[in-house]
């Protein structure tokens, strides 16, 4: 027997398991105050999931506001923060939407399904804006490559992302793979999706129009993932394994593919007034948000929900996180056509509710009223915490522990060994073992994918209009200084898309941190958000959406603060994209930007010395902006044949990647005012390598000089160098008289690392 509103009025003193559902006593009291009585068990279920950290952002809200307050002026933003995903104008009547989300904890518990359903969730977010999903990316983080648990979780997570994304027909165009001991026991699985639509197809999650019908369509509702939101995302794991073993959701990518086609079909035919995906908190979230954003009232007949398991209680149905479901608001006149389109795609659909102007969200179960609440109080007016924050006690000591005294390579031979060592370091090694499991060709519009700086897809086949996306973060920098670290993540992502020739337009983020109840973690979070908001303002690109993932820790040890930043950029003709591989002999290699003795948080300090300390590289966003403008102009005016940003591992790694990817050698030299080791391996920001045809050299260098961007000619593409350098018949990369490596040697070191461990 369901607990009804009448029961709640008649039996006000019943004790309720609010604590087990993750609610604090004062939160429970607030619910009683809002309702003027005790909640029914169904109401309690709804409030508990919707007021969880994951859904309500109760710890992060006060900080995230800055993204709006500091948002730069831009005409590009069609839908801003707060909707399922932001929407950006890219011209010609086209709009794109993109967003990144985390699925960290579920992926630790069940790597394959956790990661797969992460992809499924973000894809539905994108669909709920009215867009066709066109690409995915997957920033991933694991414990050390050789750790036993990494061998458990990594293959499963990668197979899950591939299994789901490949089956949906979404090209995977990039991502990240980072190994660090702080992620052992708490891998990060972030998933990003990009979608495209015509301006007139933009849809929002709101239930407007009294008498309109609320349709639930897609997979049937089952008992999976119940409480996943409150339990999975708000509690941490104890040392011995998961403290609670929630039932994990299993994804059905085939159903999601049908859901995409059916959704685009009904949207295209103009049958939909409002639309919402079902993710965390399932029907509770979808109905309360739709109602809260619309005319304010909705009635739901919960017993009409199609079930996979007929024994589910109404509370469970409200909380279930069964995958592959969507909600649409449809006028009665269009109902029949809507249902017919769903039937064509074999997608089940049923009317579960109706929009009204009561100002209440009411839910009936077999004729009895089990929920009667103001929808805003569930969806938007959850608790907000100003959590205490505190600069970590160890922060000063960490910053004082500079890498200056670490033993550095001193001669050519040692530099050469360092280069070969780093190119095979887990964080810098080829990720082909992973990315080869992802379909990057499907849809036939992929212009750039791994291992390019940014992923790029064509949006309009006729005009060549396209978008580029990159996502980046160096958590070590963020640990040294979260404010600067977040800006460095933004700068790198911005630089990556610019290197491809596209103009940066908007930012998304996935903020992965430890427990918000730890004041030191909260400080890291607050600093990172402040850094990112300030950085976006300075670069002139707004944050359009994102995701916060807290409680990423093993025991009481938090992960590296990891604010993953994604930047979306537009290119008016993908034909002009700049790849990372250089062209024929004689093209000139230029280093743009300034190099300083900056090794704190670098891959060299990490991989060679296991050291983390000091202050991260300096950020100069004005310089980043200039560099970006030069690379975009170079692409637009045909002055560049290749470009590659300099980040992890420094210049030597950038040159090596360009050489390996093109299969052609080069003769390089170093400006002689800086120590060669610093020149080759420092990770100063604001730099890139670009390749200029001889015919364009003058025009390009004059542009750099006029704009004040340092440009050093440091090499020339040369496929014949091998013989002179003592490697006849081979392609070599030569750095002055300091060192010469063959591309085969680089490749061998670069490609061996992951297979050696993961295939063992």
């Amino acid at each position, binding site marked *: 027997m369901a607990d009804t509103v009448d029961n709640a009025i008649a039996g006000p003193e019943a004790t309720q398991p609010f604590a087990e559902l993750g609610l604090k006593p004062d939160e429970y009291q607030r619910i009683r105050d809002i309702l003027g009585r005790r909640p029914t068990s169904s109401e309690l279920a709804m409030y508990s999931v919707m007021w969880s950290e994951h859904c309500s952002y109760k710890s992060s809200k006060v900080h995230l506001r800055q993204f709006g307050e500091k948002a730069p002026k831009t005409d590009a933003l069609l839908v801003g923060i707060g909707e399922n995903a932001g929407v950006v104008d890219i011209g010609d009547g086209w709009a794109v939407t993109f967003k990144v989300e985390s699925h960290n904890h579920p992926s630790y*518990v*069940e790597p394959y399904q956790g990661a797969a359903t992460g992809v499924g969730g973000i894809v539905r977010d994108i669909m709920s804006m009215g867009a066709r999903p066109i690409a995915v990316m997957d920033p991933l983080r694991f414990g050390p490559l050789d750790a036993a648990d990494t061998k458990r979780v990594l293959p499963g997570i990668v197979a899950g992302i591939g299994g789901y994304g490949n089956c949906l027909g979404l090209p995977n165009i990039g991502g990240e793979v980072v190994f660090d001991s702080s992620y052992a026991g708490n891998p990060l699985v972030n998933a990003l999706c990009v979608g495209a639509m015509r301006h007139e197809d933009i849809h929002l999650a709101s239930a407007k129009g009294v008498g309109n019908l609320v349709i639930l369509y897609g997979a049937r509702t089952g008992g*999976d993932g119940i409480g996943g939101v409150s339990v999975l995302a708000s509690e941490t794991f104890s040392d011995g394994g998961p403290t609670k073993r929630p*039932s994990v959701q*299993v994804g*059905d990518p*085939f*159903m999601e593919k049908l859901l995409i086609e059916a959704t685009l079909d009904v949207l295209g035919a103009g049958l939909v007034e409002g639309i919402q995906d079902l993710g965390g908190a399932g029907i509770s979230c979808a109905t309360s948000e739709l109602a809260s954003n619309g005319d304010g009232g909705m009635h739901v007949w919960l017993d009409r929900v199609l079930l996979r*398991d007929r024994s589910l209680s109404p509370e469970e149905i409200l909380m279930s996180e*069964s995958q592959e479901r969507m909600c649409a608001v449809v006028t009665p006149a269009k109902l029949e056509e809507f249902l017919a389109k769903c039937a064509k795609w074999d997608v089940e659909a049923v009317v579960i509710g109706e929009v009204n102007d009561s100002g209440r969200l009411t839910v009936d179960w077999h004729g009895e009223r089990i929920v009667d609440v103001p929808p805003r109080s569930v969806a938007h007016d959850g608790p907000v915490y100003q959590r205490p924050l505190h600069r970590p006690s160890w922060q000063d000591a960490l910053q004082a522990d500079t890498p200056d005294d670490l033993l550095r390579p001193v001669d050519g031979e040692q530099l050469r060994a360092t280069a070969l060592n780093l190119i095979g370091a887990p964080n810098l090694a080829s990720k082909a073992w992973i990315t080869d499991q992802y379909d990057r060709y499907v849809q036939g519009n992929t212009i750039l994918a791994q291992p390019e700086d940014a992923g790029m897809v064509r949006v309009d086949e006729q005009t060549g209009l396209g978008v580029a996306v990159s996502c980046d973060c160096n958590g070590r920098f963020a640990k040294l200084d979260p404010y600067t670290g977040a800006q460095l993540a933004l700068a790198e992502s911005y630089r990556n898309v610019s290197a491809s020739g596209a103009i940066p337009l908007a930012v998304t983020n996935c903020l992965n941190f430890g427990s918000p109840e730890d004041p030191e973690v909260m400080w890291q979070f607050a600093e990172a958000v402040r850094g990112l908001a300030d950085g976006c303002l300075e670069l002139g690109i707004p944050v359009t959406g994102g995701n916060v993932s807290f409680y990423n820790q093993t025991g009481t040890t938090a992960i590296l603060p990891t604010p993953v930043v994604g930047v979306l950029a537009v290119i008016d003709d993908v034909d002009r994209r700049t790849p990372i591989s250089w062209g024929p002999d004689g093209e000139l290699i230029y280093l743009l930007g300034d190099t300083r003795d900056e090794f704190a948080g670098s891959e060299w300090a990490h991989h060679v010395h296991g050291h983390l300390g000091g202050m991260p590289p300096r950020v100069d966003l004005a310089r980043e902006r200039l560099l970006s403008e030069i690379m975009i102009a170079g692409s637009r005016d045909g002055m560049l044949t290749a470009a590659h940003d300099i980040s992890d591992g420094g210049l030597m790694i950038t040159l090596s990647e360009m050489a390996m990817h093109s299969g052609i050698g080069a003769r390089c030299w170093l400006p002689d005012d800086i120590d060669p080791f610093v020149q080759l391996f420092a990770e100063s920001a604001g730099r890139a390598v670009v390749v200029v045809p001889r015919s364009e050299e003058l025009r390009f260098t004059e542009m750099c000089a006029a704009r004040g961007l340092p440009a050093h000619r440091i090499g020339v593409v040369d496929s014949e160098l091998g013989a002179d350098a003592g490697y006849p018949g081979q392609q070599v990369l030569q750095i002055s008289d300091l060192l010469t490596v063959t591309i085969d040697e680089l490749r061998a070191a670069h490609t061996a690392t992951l297979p050696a461990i993961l295939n063992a």
Partner: protein
Amino acid sequence: MARVVVDVMLKPEILDPQGRAVQGALGRLGLTGVADVRLGKQFIITIDGDVAGERLEQLHALAAELLSNPVIENYVLRVEADA
């Protein structure tokens, strides 16, 4: 030589998209009255020597941890007549 058979099935509350797809196909091909289809894995392990005592315990542990994921699956293990 013994033959150990481990059947691994998704727990009943977990969605089984494969089973559903098969159920749909059986229906389309004219089989009536199919109430449910679940699709599981079957491991057939041929093993030297006897399977009992500690060895059987070891097999159970492996079935629970390696061959299945207890979060979403159940397993049944049986030792069949010597192969």
